[in-house]
């Protein structure tokens, strides 16, 4: 029979302290645990994608408090709807970041906070002196690949998808803003995303085709 100390220690773990064993699980396995109400698994997913999610939200809403709200609401959506995730439609990371992105766009539309030119405003504020972990190196490499692919897009396509994704503009707002017919904006976004996907695949970035 275990004693009080053992039991309290075991209980602390159940309440969501970091569990090293979760680190070996796939994102899919973690989502399955989250769908069964495992908050430690949610924490592990946050540890994997929280930084990307926060950086993305910050870029869209341009306000730290709002960015935190977007990430929190996005992960709340993950928590609530993990049971509806379908692996055949993409990776968990895609799904999670899609949920966070949607919250950030909702917030920025509500706040009427729009960046005039998201392309020029890419802040060069790498956290100075941050340790070059494997994860960090991987993220930097990935960022370079995506940035290079973006540079290879036709400028009008790049403009349309960047203003939409980072600026939170709707297609109708973009048509007005860019002085183009709605159909043109739709075509640019579609062609731009398609081309971007090809470029990423060519660059060897893991692309999960369903």
């Amino acid at each position: 029979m275990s004693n009080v100390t053992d039991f309290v220690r075991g209980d602390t773990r159940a309440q969501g302290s970091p569990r090293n064993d979760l680190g070996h699980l796939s994102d899919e396995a973690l989502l399955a645990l989250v769908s069964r109400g495992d908050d430690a698994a949610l924490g592990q997913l946050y540890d994997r994608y929280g930084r990307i999610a926060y950086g993305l939200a910050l870029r869209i809403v341009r306000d730290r408090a709002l960015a935190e709200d977007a990430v929190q609401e996005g992960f709340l959506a993950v928590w609530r709807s993990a049971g509806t995730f379908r692996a055949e439609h993409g990776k968990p990371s895609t799904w999670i970041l899609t949920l966070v992105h949607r919250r950030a766009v909702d917030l920025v539309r509500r706040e009427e906070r729009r960046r005039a030119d998201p392309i020029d405003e890419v802040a060069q504020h790498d956290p100075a002196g941050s340790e070059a972990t494997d994860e960090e190196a991987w993220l930097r490499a990935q960022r370079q690949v995506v940035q290079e692919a973006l540079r290879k897009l036709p400028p009008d396509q790049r403009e349309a998808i960047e203003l939409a994704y980072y600026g939170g503009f709707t297609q109708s707002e973009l048509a007005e803003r860019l002085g183009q017919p709605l159909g043109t904006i739709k075509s640019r976004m579609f062609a731009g995303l398609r081309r971007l996907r090809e470029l990423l695949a060519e660059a060897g970035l893991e692309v999960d085709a369903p």
Partner: protein
Amino acid sequence: MAHDLAAAFALDALDDDEADEFEQHLAICPDCEDELARLRVAAVALAFAGELAVPPPRLRERVLDVGAPVIPLRRRRRPQLVAAVAVVAAAVIAIAVRPWDDGGSLGGMKRFTAQGARATLLVDRSGEAVLAVRRLPPPPAGKAYEIWVIAGGKATPAGWVRSSFAPLARPVPPGASVAVSIEPAAGSPQPTGALVLRAETT
């Protein structure tokens, strides 16, 4: 024609009405569903194009905290309940003097002293319960201590006493009693062995 909304949807560039329209269309158009999945891969790659930002440490706590209002009761309550029992029991064991009053209230939980072995049953408002057992000898070989919730003359299995604190696998309705008996280690559908303790909640 909603087909041409897939890219804008992947970029979250639709207004609410357009997004609704496309979502309805998605439900009946597997082609668009596949197309959307492909376009999303490219859209989400944009998330990785930005500079790395460091979220404040409190954000992790906030993210984990958002679970609180929606975590199913069974999952959330029990650890807290068990923790409370552990703390209380530890204090009681340490002091080892004051007997607990039956039916007293403790942090919203009612506590009941068992007859037979020394044990205390704590039940919260929703019926979630924990049995704190003291100095129970190890069960005979091949046997185990099985917990029963007895209500309306019917005993239902409610888990096992394997440590000093045993959360019950089912709620305890008002007026029910909780008993522990010695059963085969594989469990019994009904109590068959010697009764070790019994706690009435009336």
